[in-house]
């Protein structure tokens, strides 16, 4: 066998292995009933994960049976130190029920990051900010504790007031939930506070 032929077959083996890993790790529904294949699927996922390859993702899993869905959320972030300082405020949008899509990348990022943890906390499911789903709240509050405006006012606590508008899927009506909380900038914990 020539060296070129050998290299070609070696490459082919690698390609077959890689493509096999992609396919095996992406077919959980098909492999589900075949329990013997589960270790194969897990191994494929692990190997791809190790090299940073994601076979695929669900963007909208749609598994929730809730009849209310998030419609809009607005925040007011207030720092308290030597003086009170408003660090972010778009509550007025929600107060006026002005339903409009978010365009600003920071606002989208903030809502995506904060809404999940705040809803979870408000429903009393979780408390620790160390848990992964809670982490965005810790990271955002830590960010606000140290933005230049907060540093100038020697901010020691950050309060986040939230207006959350939900949409009822059955009748199209909307409802407002107020949520709030406080972060002591020196502690990685969250204190729930009704605004």
């Amino acid at each position, binding site marked *: 066998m020539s060296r070129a032929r050998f290299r070609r077959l070696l490459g082919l083996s690698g390609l077959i292995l890689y493509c096999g890993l992609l396919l095996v790790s992406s077919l959980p529904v098909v492999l589900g009933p075949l329990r013997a294949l589960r270790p194969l699927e897990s191994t494929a996922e692990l190997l791809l994960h190790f090299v940073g390859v994601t076979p695929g993702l669900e963007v909208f899993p749609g598994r929730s049976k809730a009849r209310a869905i998030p*419609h809009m959320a607005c925040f007011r972030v207030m720092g308290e130190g030597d003086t009170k300082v408003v660090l972010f405020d778009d509550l007025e949008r929600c107060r006026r029920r002005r339903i409009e899509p978010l365009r600003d990348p920071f606002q989208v990022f903030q809502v995506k990051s904060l809404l999940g943890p705040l809803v979870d906390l408000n429903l009393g499911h979780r408390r620790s900010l160390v848990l992964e789903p809670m982490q965005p709240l810790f990271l955002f509050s830590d960010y606000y504790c140290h933005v230049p405006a907060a540093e100038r006012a020697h901010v020691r606590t950050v309060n986040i007031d939230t207006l959350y508008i939900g949409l009822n899927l059955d009748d199209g009506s909307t409802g407002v939930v107020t949520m709030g909380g406080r972060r002591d900038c020196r502690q990685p914990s969250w204190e729930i506070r009704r605004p």
Partner: protein
Amino acid sequence: MSKLEEFFYEPIRFRGLFVMRAAFGLIAIFYYLRLVPYLQVFFGPSGVGGHDTAARWPSFPIAVTEGFEHYELLRYVAQPGVVWGLWLGLLVSATCFALGLLTRPAGLVLAALHVVFAAHQPHLTMGWAQLYPAFVVYLALAPSGQAWSVDAWRRQRKDPSVVGSWSVTPWALRVLQVHVLAMYATAGWPRLTAHAWLHGETVLHAVADTRFGRWGWDWQALQPLLAAATYYALVLEPAATLLLPLRITRRWCALGLIALHLGIELLADVGMWQFMMSAAVLAFLPDTWFSWIPGLRSAPLPADLREPSPSAYS
């Protein structure tokens, strides 16, 4: 075995490869330019989850993007200028990749720098950023700069006897195709047991939520249309895993998917998902469908590359 060897190695004529390269480069340019006003907030040392937070809370287990944990380097960057430099490097590599200038190294640098940025913020990108670098690496490894590129233009300028060719050894393109199938399998099949999908409500969830929706309309009134859109996606994406590999259904399925992705893009903003998947699905269209594009209309083939039969790819 010989069938597999043929599948991965037999040269094919596919002009879409060069279009895909340009599209993937443009996606990065568009996405990262949009982030300019907030670059330091998202990725800088004093930004959300940045170096300063990590330094203040050294024992806090800050999460990173799943799959990219080995590449979370920005947390160690204490200088905002370094973040600007990396961002600039990413934009330059994306531009070179789109134009086909130093195509292969530009693509690999683009993928690497994108991974560094994407690793830092798990909640910024809705997941598309996790798939993007793999696709770019495939395109960089494929001869995607062979034509319709500055590289090809420079080669020809240097030596006018060099003849451009649309024929490529397709192994990297084949891997990309398999990855696209894996993507639709992962996203599509689990939906068949998901409540909101089965009840035709998922598109309503997406468009009525101001985090994603592009329009502030009364979506409840349009629910029958949104339910039809939900069922279209519910059927097409799992079906794509079966229809894309079949020659007879491939192109129509690919067109259906592109329509789906562009339709979603019209209604909702979920990052670069729709542009990325539309660009990736181009890999399943016939070569001749790209012949209207200026610069891809015609070119003689080198004698050593035989013209594949029409059924070989298209």
